[in-house]
């Protein structure tokens, strides 16, 4: 507009006479500088994603190789038989468990002396001994085959190392040295021949094993009480089922082919759905995230189960019920709890809480609690209790905020209709702030699932899916967690190894899990805002 005026009026108010850099005024420069800083959080988030992927992505290629050699070197073949033998071991274990129960019954309930009770169990012992010995031919076969397969695998790995060495020499320009590196070519078909040749021997051993088991089962002793006899019957049924699987195993062995391709997605599914995390093993490494994931989940669930009632209850109390003086006292105290470093809590768990809980579980009058008594002082429960203390301040603060945001008018209207405070809280205030409370709980979950030091120190660090058949008692078992495994193993692994990359993949799972939880919490809050305004 001004350009149409006379030149004299243009200079009035014109911004052209200001200092400029690259066509930007000073203010624009400053603005750009601050904007750049604001972008940093975006950049960091992107970098986190990028570097987790960068270090982790090769995992799939390596795991694919890992799985392929598992098949080609015949390890898979051997594992079929090994599983069969391991299943038998599990049955033997349940048998010895049954013996302990029977002995307890005889000595404690029937008050017989120990020697006499043992004598009474002589028949049982003979049966159990025969049952456990029956597997011997199969077991020796497995150990022979294990050696053979390991040998093939070692050859293959050595060849791989040589190849790597040659590549490095070539890359360094040392062609002559590279030529001198001998790389053995592995002919899997030839190598596997002796392994596969044992099939008739297996059939024979298996036959003998089955006959022996059936013969033993016929001699099964009867047990003194109906309850124990019921367990014995269950054991028999299990054994029958076990025997029924034999033909299937044999069929699998017959049709096994080392050339059967390993599908590319197996490297992925073996990680996501793999039920075993086994590293640095002489036989075969497995990188399945499920035991770690379940561990993290169990610990978090226990923590939330404790933290939600306490945190939300405290928030309601402070926001609606407590006097002003109490509020002034409680709020900073809870804030203070949130400042306790997690490693100190972890130390407290190791030094005090673990033992205290174990001592508590030993009281006979508490033996009705599922899982009590337990002997592992570091377990899901110990870690869960401490994590609950970590989660309470988060849940408390956010839930209190949500309660605070409920318009006063709601409360006043309810009072005016003659409702008392409890009715107002339960029927008006909590429902109105429900989504805020839920998102507080979700953020508490995020805090707990990402916590490292407490679970590393207090969860027991046993890498196995806890035994859910124990019912609620499962919480007294030790587990390992996703965060814990990274912290524990990252310092020790070889850079670039499959194990190293697997840990980054676990980190990636953790990262996306926390993003998901965060996203969910935000969505819930946003919906809540819309419904109020």
């Amino acid at each position, binding site marked *: *507009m*001004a*350009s149409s*005026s*006379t030149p*004299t*009026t*243009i*200079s*009035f*108010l*014109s*911004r*052209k006479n*200001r200092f400029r850099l690259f066509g930007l005024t000073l203010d624009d420069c400053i603005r750009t500088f601050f904007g750049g800083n604001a972008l940093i959080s975006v950049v960091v988030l992107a970098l986190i994603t990028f570097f987790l992927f960068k270090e982790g992505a090769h995992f799939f290629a390596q795991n694919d190789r890992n799985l392929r050699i598992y098949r080609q070197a015949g390890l898979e073949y051997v594992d079929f038989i090994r599983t069969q033998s391991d299943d038998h071991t599990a049955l033997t274990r349940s048998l010895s468990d049954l013996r302990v129960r029977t002995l307890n019954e005889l000595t404690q309930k029937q008050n017989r002396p120990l020697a006499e009770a043992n004598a009474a169990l002589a028949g049982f012992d003979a049966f159990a001994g025969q049952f456990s010995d029956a597997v011997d031919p199969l077991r020796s076969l497995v150990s022979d085959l294990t050696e053979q397969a390991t040998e093939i695998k070692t050859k293959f790995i050595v060849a791989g190392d040589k190849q790597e060495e040659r590549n490095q020499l070539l890359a360094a320009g040392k062609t002559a040295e590279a030529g001198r590196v001998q790389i053995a070519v592995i002919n899997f078909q030839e190598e596997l021949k002796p392994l596969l040749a044992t099939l008739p021997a297996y059939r024979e051993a298996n036959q003998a094993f089955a006959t022996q088991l059936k013969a033993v089962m016929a001699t099964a002793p009867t047990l003194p009480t109906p309850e124990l006899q019921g367990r014995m019957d269950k054991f028999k049924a299990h054994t029958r089922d076990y025997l029924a699987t034999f033909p299937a195993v044999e069929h699998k062995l017959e049709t096994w082919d080392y050339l059967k391709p390993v599908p590319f997605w197996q490297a992925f599914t073996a990680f996501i759905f793999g039920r075993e995390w086994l590293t640095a093993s002489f036989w075969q490494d497995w990188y399945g995230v499920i035991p770690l994931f379940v561990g993290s989940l169990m610990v978090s669930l226990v923590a939330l189960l404790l933290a939600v009632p306490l945190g939300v209850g405290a928030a309601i109390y402070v926001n609606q019920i407590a006097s002003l003086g109490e509020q002034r006292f409680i709020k900073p105290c809870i804030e203070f709890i949130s400042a306790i470093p997690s490693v100190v809590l972890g130390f407290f768990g190791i030094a005090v809480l673990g033992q205290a809980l174990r001592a508590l579980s030993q009281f006979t009058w508490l033996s009705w609690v599922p899982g009590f008594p337990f002997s592992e002082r570091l377990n899901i429960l110990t870690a869960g209790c401490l994590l609950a203390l970590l989660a309470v301040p988060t849940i408390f603060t956010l839930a209190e905020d949500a309660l605070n945001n409920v318009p006063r008018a709601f409360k006043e209207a309810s009072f005016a209709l003659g409702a008392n405070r409890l009715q107002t809280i339960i029927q008006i205030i909590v429902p109105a702030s429900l989504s805020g409370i839920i998102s507080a709980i979700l953020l508490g979950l995020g805090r707990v699932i990402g916590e490292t030091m407490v679970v590393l120190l207090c969860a027991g660090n046993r890498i196995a899916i806890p035994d859910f058949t124990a019912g609620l008692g499962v919480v007294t078992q030790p587990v390992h967690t996703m965060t814990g495994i990274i912290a524990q193993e990252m310092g020790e692994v070889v850079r670039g190894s499959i194990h190293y990359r697997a840990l980054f993949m676990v980190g990636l799972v953790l990262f996306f899990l926390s993003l998901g939880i965060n996203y969910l919490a935000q969505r819930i809050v946003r919906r809540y805002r819309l419904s109020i305004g």
Partner: protein
Amino acid sequence: MVIADPLSMDTRSSVPTPRPTMGTSSLATAGDSSAPASEILIDIEHLDFFYGASQALHDITLQVEAKKATALIGPSGCGKSTLLRCLNRMNDLIDGTRIGRGTIKIRDVEINGRDIDVIELRKRVGMVFQKSNPFPKSIYENITYGLRLQGVKTKAQLDEVVERSLRAAALWDEVKDRLHASGLGLSGGQQQRLCIARAIAVEPEIILMDEPCSALDPIATAKVEELIHELKTNFTIVIVTHNMQQAARCSDRTAFFYMGRLVEYAETRTIFMNPGNPQTEAYVSGRFG
């Protein structure tokens, strides 16, 4: 003002009569009214203004004369504050605002043009807000804030401006002994006059007042009104007010707004005594609003 002077020399060339320079002299020569009543300082033509999708101003055409107090009245939400904030582009600070159509010219310069320096504009078009907003600094620093921004550092010069502005704002006698006390320690009316003094200190040509007395008690209001009366000898004042008596007392011309439209614009006397529009009459006689 030192920096603005050469520029105002330019602008003055486009109007026939030279206005008194906004320097020391102008304040000294209070009561001087050499400018003719017909000089148009602000010229708004066919202005449409939007907050996001909703239109706040419809086709406003209004001329504000120099050295006069112009009052904008009307019920809440009628757009009078919006129009006021258009004049120094304070609406830029609010998200989603835009001008749909029309022009606002100050001394024939379109202030929404591409090459307008908003900073320079705001130096020349000062503003006093509804809620007094002294900075949490001393009285002295509050008044010299604008000058210091422009690089004035000489103590003598600053001292002089402080005294002159405070005198002009009729606050000097009350605060001269505690210039270095916090501005927040003053009473509500004093705070508002401090804000006026602060606005005067940068020597704007126009002072916009957005309901300056709405938070004040009657005595403080009276003082501010008196002040407005004196200020208009040197400044062009545009004042938004809810209080019709106030408009009647201190303005020369009055514009009545309703629902984002300018209903009537005339001499204040006319508006209150003999309004041309029935809506205006209903409003000024207190039948609605």
